[in-house]
């Protein structure tokens, strides 16, 4: 379950990375071409950019919140499991020591 979820998050991070690298340049170039050929004016490009920026910011914000929540839960679970292992190792060490003392 965790492996699958981790894989999904890794893929999502890669998609965000690609989006961040391509979108600004693609938007800038397409806007320049559309403005030069008088298909749209600067005001339209400005508002389209503003709406795109706002949608990206909101989607990224919620994605980041849910991802951070998942990572903290995973970290807490891992930490708890490590503590349990530590306790068990201590108990086993104690038992081994007492058996050795008896013999």
């Amino acid at each position, binding site marked *: 379950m965790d492996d699958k979820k981790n894989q999904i998050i890794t893929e999502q991070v890669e998609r965000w990375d690609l989006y961040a690298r391509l*979108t600004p340049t693609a938007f800038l170039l397409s806007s320049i071409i559309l403005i030069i050929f008088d298909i749209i004016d600067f005001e339209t490009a400005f508002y389209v950019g503003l709406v795109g920026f706002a949608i990206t910011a909101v989607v990224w914000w919620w994605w980041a919140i849910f991802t951070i929540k998942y990572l903290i839960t995973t970290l807490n679970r891992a930490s708890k499991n490590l503590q349990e292992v530590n306790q068990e190792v201590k108990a086993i060490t104690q038992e081994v020591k007492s058996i050795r003392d008896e013999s």
Partner: protein
Amino acid sequence: MNLNNYALIKAATNIISGFSMVTLIVLGVAYMSFKNSFVYQDVQIQIINNPVTGDKDIEFAMIGSKRHDCASTRVYGTAYSEDNRAIILDRFSKQYIYNTTPGDAIPNSWSLVKPKEIIPGMYRVSITGEFVCTYIVFKQEKIQSYDNILLIVK
């Protein structure tokens, strides 16, 4: 594609994307600033031949500075009488300078023919200018008004 080429392409796209983002932000901020700015700053307009008598024209003087390059396309005045009648003043007997240089405060003056509807009394005059402004790659039509100029007709 080997690992080196992949890393190189990734780095290049990161840099290009960064520059694109900076360009978009700078252009966006410049556009907002240009769109919301007034044509004239520190502007003052007054009628210099108050009280206007007989068939004399109404003479206006103005001083103000422009931030951007703006050319006026239409200028007209509206005189409001004390009983709130609006009379349009748009017949120029002396023209104003259409495209003053941006930056310094430059005086400008013009005269408008006094219409027959203007009878002796006091009026509040509004001068409205319609402009086409340009800045870097932007072009915008703007309207600016200057209200409450006292006109006394005797």
